[in-house]
């Protein structure tokens, strides 16, 4: 089929002349979208890598000091390194200097050595200057500057930056930092081993049983996607915290720590695993089951010889997706991790808590490794999964079996109860006046303007942001996918675009957000004006969720015959006329799916934007984080539920729009 475009050589050649403007437009679009992905993903990551190599060190040998002798002449000049050596105590108390470390010159020269000296003078001999701070002003040349004894305490030395691997060495030498790698792996693996079987059971029940209310269960299974990952943590605090009704179930263990992280992670990764496995189970070939029955295999044997092998790629893929989601998430450990350090939380703590950007960059680079590996494996595996679906496969139709259907129903009800229970607890807690001492209902917790996090404005900001992301993101993604899939010019550009479009998937939100600080906040960056605006949040969020949307669009475009383009080319029609008249209407369900995917994720995202919001652009999900941080966990739950209801409303709107538009543009599907 791919060759069909070249079948009619003459018309294509003829069309080529008429379509030169198409060529220019297409090339222009490829350049613009590729540039967007470079600016929004590739360049920031490079800037971050650069920062992870930046270390700070004092160069005391480059600062000279002279004492004024009693006769008014100046004594011999010595470097600060000389005085420091003479002092004999470790520099900076033996601590590693950071960007903001300062040393008082008076602390480097012993009091005995500078006894009776009334006037000092210092100069900065370093190559780039800027090592000395005289009462707040930075040295810019190597001229001597005189300082009286009483002001010597106000002269500070600051460290100079270098490019080295020291940050990485320091990371691996520090047990509290290094330990996070193991912690992250442990919780991610445990969650993976719990979620995959759990989701498999659920998907199995949906595809292989005749239990009632399948639609309801499918809907419930998708619910965790609609809330920020902070919310399950808050729900667990209410359920299992020291005042929680289920606290005794923990048998003395604390919910703050790995137990809480795993339970909350199971909650928020469940739908992702479920969706992948559901697809894998749905495409199994009924003919294999018929064969199995014909061979008189038991149900159990059929399960292990047909069902599981058929879904194996889905299982592997979902395992890697869950692993990546947990290891890169910071919402859950932030709320319920207690003192249990994990990689994503370390980035947050280094950057927000200590403003140690270099170490944040180092942890980010380390977090990229497991994320990249998981991404690569998942890509390989998924390709094979799709290959399993042959054109002659017959869809499997389950038969009734009372005992089996009842068991499956009970199982699904249990899992759904877990999902709904956590959300219900959050909603309930948000409505209590003063949990657990005053259980009368009140809307006081919705008075967000009296809490940290930006108040109701942050909710409004989130709505706007999600709307922009949905509209602009869908346009960019769909046009990008179209030029990659359906145009012929500029093969190199299309290849590059395809490559760039795959990148965001492998980059954790935390890492992306942090890299924006380094890139956009750099004084030399002409794009710096974007910093602190709504635009940067939109740019970042679209980039963060680009890959999945891009894949949705390309999959949908691949289903369309290339003949449309070649026919229109021979009719000397513009590519863009086909795009508007045929491609868009045909792909309209996919376009709506991309828009809702973008919207929902923009409403719940925290990890990337937590470094980028500003007072005028606070966001609802970040407000949940900040309110929880300040101890206002009931209002945090209230805001989290606001996000949930908004996403439910958006979903309903999406379903409604799909039905109305579908009737108009999808009529052709019915005929086929």
């Amino acid at each position, binding site marked *: 089929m791919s060759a069909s475009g070249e079948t009619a050589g003459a018309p294509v050649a003829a069309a080529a002349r008429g379509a030169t403007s198409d060529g220019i437009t297409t090339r222009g679009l490829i350049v613009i979208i590729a540039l967007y992905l470079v*600016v929004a993903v590739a360049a920031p990551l490079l800037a971050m890598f650069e920062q992870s190599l930046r270390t700070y060190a004092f160069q005391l040998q480059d600062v000279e000091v002279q004492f004024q002798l009693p006769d008014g002449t100046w004594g011999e000049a010595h470097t600060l390194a000389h005085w420091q050596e003479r002092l004999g105590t470790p520099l900076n108390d033996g*601590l590693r200097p950071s960007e903001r470390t300062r040393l008082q010159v008076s602390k480097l020269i012993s009091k005995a050595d500078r006894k009776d000296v009334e006037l000092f003078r210092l100069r900065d001999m370093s190559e780039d200057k800027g090592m000395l701070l005289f009462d707040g002003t930075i040295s810019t040349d190597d001229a001597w500057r005189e300082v009286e004894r009483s002001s010597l305490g106000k002269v500070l030395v600051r460290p100079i930056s270098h490019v080295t691997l020291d940050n990485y060495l320091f990371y691996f030498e520090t047990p509290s930092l290094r330990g996070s790698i193991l912690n992250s792996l442990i919780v991610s693996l445990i969650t993976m081993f719990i979620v995959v079987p759990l989701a498999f059971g659920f998907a199995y029940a949906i595809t292989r049983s005749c239990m009632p209310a399948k639609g309801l269960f499918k809907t419930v299974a998708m619910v965790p996607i609609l809330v920020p990952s902070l919310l399950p943590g808050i729900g667990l605090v209410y359920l299992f915290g020291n005042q929680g009704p289920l606290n005794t179930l923990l048998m003395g263990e604390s919910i703050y720590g790995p137990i809480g992280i795993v339970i909350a992670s199971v909650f928020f990764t469940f739908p992702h695993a479920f969706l992948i496995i559901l697809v894998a189970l749905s495409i199994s070939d009924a003919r294999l089951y018929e064969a199995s029955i014909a061979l008189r295999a038991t149900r159990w044997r059929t399960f292990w010889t047909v069902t599981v092998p058929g879904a194996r790629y889905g299982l592997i893929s979902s395992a890697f997706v869950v692993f990546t989601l947990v290891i890169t998430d910071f919402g859950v450990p932030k709320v319920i991790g207690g003192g249990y350090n994990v990689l994503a939380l370390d980035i947050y703590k280094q950057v927000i808590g200590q403003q140690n950007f270099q170490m944040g960059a180092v942890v980010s680079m380390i977090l990229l490794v497991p994320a990249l590996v998981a991404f690569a494996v998942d890509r390989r595996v998924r390709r094979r999964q799709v290959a399993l679906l042959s054109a002659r496969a017959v869809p499997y139709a389950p038969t009734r079996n009372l005992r089996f259907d009842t068991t499956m129903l009970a199982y699904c009800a249990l899992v759904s109860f877990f999902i709904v229970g956590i959300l219900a607890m959050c909603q309930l807690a948000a409505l209590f006046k003063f949990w657990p001492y*005053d259980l009368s209902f009140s809307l006081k917790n919705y008075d967000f303007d009296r809490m940290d996090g930006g108040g109701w404005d942050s909710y409004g900001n989130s709505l706007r942001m999600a709307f922009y992301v949905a509209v602009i993101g869908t346009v960019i993604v769909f046009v990008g996918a179209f030029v990659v899939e359906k145009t012929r010019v500029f093969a190199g550009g299309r290849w590059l675009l395809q490559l760039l479009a795959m990148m965001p998937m492998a980059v954790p939100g935390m890492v992306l957000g942090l890299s924006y600080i380094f890139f956009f906040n750099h004084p030399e960056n002409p794009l710096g004006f974007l910093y602190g605006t709504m635009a940067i949040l939109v740019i970042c969020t679209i980039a963060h969720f680009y890959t999945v949307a891009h894949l949705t669009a390309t999959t949908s475009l691949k289903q369309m015959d290339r003949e449309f383009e070649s026919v229109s080319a021979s009719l000397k029609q513009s590519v863009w006329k086909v795009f508007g008249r045929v491609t868009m209407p045909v792909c309209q369900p996919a376009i709506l799916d991309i828009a809702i995917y973008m919207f929902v994720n923009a409403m719940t995202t925290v990890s990337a934007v937590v470094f980028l919001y500003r007072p005028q652009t606070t966001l609802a999900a970040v407000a949940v984080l900040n309110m929880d941080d300040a101890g206002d966990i009931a209002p945090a739950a209230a805001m989290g539920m606001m996000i949930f209801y908004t996403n439910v409303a958006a979903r309903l709107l999406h379903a409604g729009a799909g039905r109305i538009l579908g009737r108009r543009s999808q009529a052709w599907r019915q005929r086929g």
Partner: protein
Amino acid sequence: MSIHTYLKSLTAGVLGAAVAGLMATTAFAQTELTVYTAVEAEDLDKYAERFNEAHPDITINWVRDSTGIITAKLLAEKDNPQADVVWGLAATSLLLMKSEGMLEPYAPAGLDRLNDKFRDAAEPPYWTGMDAWVAAICVNTVEAENNGLPMPSSWEDLTDPVYQGHVAMPNPNSSGTGFLDVSSWLQLFGEDGGWDYMDRLHDNIAFYTHSGSKPCKDAARGEVPIGVSFAFRGAKSKADGAPLEIIIPTEGIGWDMEATAIVAGTDNLEAAQTLVDWSISEDANRMYNEGYAVIGITELAQPVEHFPEGITDAMIDNDFEWAAQNRERILAEWQSRYDEKSEPEG
């Protein structure tokens, strides 16, 4: 060559138009001030409203976070400051900023009425104080009884094994209250004694929090029976109906001052000065007094409801300069000792 230089040439053209478009839409009659603060979030509206009663032409855009974070943010933005004014930040933090040359000296109108402790020593001062913010212990009486805990009366009491797992305190690396606690223990018990005290206290700590008000809010809802926090927060939660007892430990309490300063290089110097003038006015001091017992203009101070007695006497002779200069070392030491609480071996 860095990637920034590449991009500069690559995007300059496209951007010219975009920038021009954006600029054209912004024109304000109002002066807007970006004010960084660590004042409790629920008070911000009140502060802005009262200020606007006197000066309706100046709009305040708040940036609020815990003390440690706001301080770190200000220092990180040193080369490209975003704030015009800092209103309500620990004096120790402002001392740090002063040494970096980040503050604009200014003698606000009515400076002579301010208690000498509540201003920077320089002439004109780089910062002026608002109110004192004192450490305290919040004890949830219901949970204390449920767990059979005696009422503590001193810092030393908190190290009693009976409180194991029942105490929360703020992490000094992110919370100003946390740093105030740690630096006051080091001053009260001496360097060695202070660390020895914290070693023993650490055994009883259930968790360290990010913000200084959280331990008290957690105590208020019974998540932990005892929270090391500050008196103002305790009084507020008590007023909200929480079963709290606010304890002023007998050894004395650490304190810091909330203070105000102008960020050097502000484009709105006049408005910033107007705000700082107001921040030490009588009206402002009466407003601070609604929540804080110790304020800048001493003779205006009225007793505050739910505040325990004897706060002023319990305040230690705090050495701000020492605290500011040794901050980095203290924080690093604290982190290496206690921040690995749940670390696995190796």
